[in-house]
């Protein structure tokens, strides 16, 4: 499994908002055990998709110097299941007024206009170059945004 939970980024505005999507396929590895004979996209992977989308917002806003890691989830509510064949559309926003060293984000995931997950969370930024080749990731971001 490639632990990449965002397929496409549709738009973003530095330090404010990013939108993207994940297509849930029947061929996903994690559906074999989640659950046997009853495939449902795991809720935590919806949360991971939101965290990765936040990473892309932090990266794109810092010219790919930083990345984001989730450290606290204040609240995350799961409203319904995402099934194979669904396209989950995500939006992550920076909550205004938070301090620079403790930025809080809100994220939402929807399928066909119905919300499936709403989360409020915070994290820390780390050097992108420390964990990935930043230039390669810049190229990958262009693939995701289809620029």
């Amino acid at each position: 499994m490639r632990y990449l939970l965002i397929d496409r980024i549709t738009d973003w505005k530095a330090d404010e908002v990013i939108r993207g999507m994940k297509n849930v396929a029947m061929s996903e590895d994690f559906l074999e055990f989640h659950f046997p004979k009853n495939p449902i996209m795991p809720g935590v992977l919806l949360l991971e998709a939101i965290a990765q989308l936040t990473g892309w917002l932090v990266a794109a806003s810092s010219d790919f110097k930083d990345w984001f890691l989730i450290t606290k989830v204040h609240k995350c509510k799961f409203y319904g299941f995402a099934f194979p064949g669904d396209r989950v559309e995500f939006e992550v926003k920076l909550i205004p007024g938070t301090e620079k060293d403790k930025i809080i984000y809100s994220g939402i995931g929807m399928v066909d206009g119905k919300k499936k997950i709403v989360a409020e969370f915070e994290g820390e930024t780390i050097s992108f170059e420390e964990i990935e080749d930043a230039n390669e990731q810049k190229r990958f971001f262009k693939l995701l945004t289809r620029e």
Partner: protein
Amino acid sequence: MRFLFYDAVTNIEKGKSITGVKSFSLSEEFLRGHYSKIAMVPGVIMIEAMAQLLGWLIIYSHDFRLTAIMSLIEDVTVISNLRPGFRAEIRGEIVSTSRRDSLGMASICVEDKCIASLNRIIYSHFHDVQPEELIKRFEYYSGWKIQ
């Protein structure tokens, strides 16, 4: 990818608590892409580990007559930059449970250090289940014998 984030159940007390172990190894599938220069265990995988183990305690406490799916998490803290190569102890407790839903809390420790905590988790219960099938799965996953 086998979406199972505990290796064995070490103790279970009906209606009260469960403990289990999970070894995080460098061969984990989720490390493909997380990240290429440094391997880090994703925080949401630790959330899933706590949710899976506590979920089994709820099912066990209701004699395998229902299944429990996470619907809300609150006040969660995870260490975001853990390198694999450690054995963690996962502990979950039921705070309250009814026919309809359950409330619980969980944590993960490595030796005496807490690396993740989940102070509030709510599960919705689903009653359309086959108890024999659930028992078989629990026995295989946990290493415990029910019958």
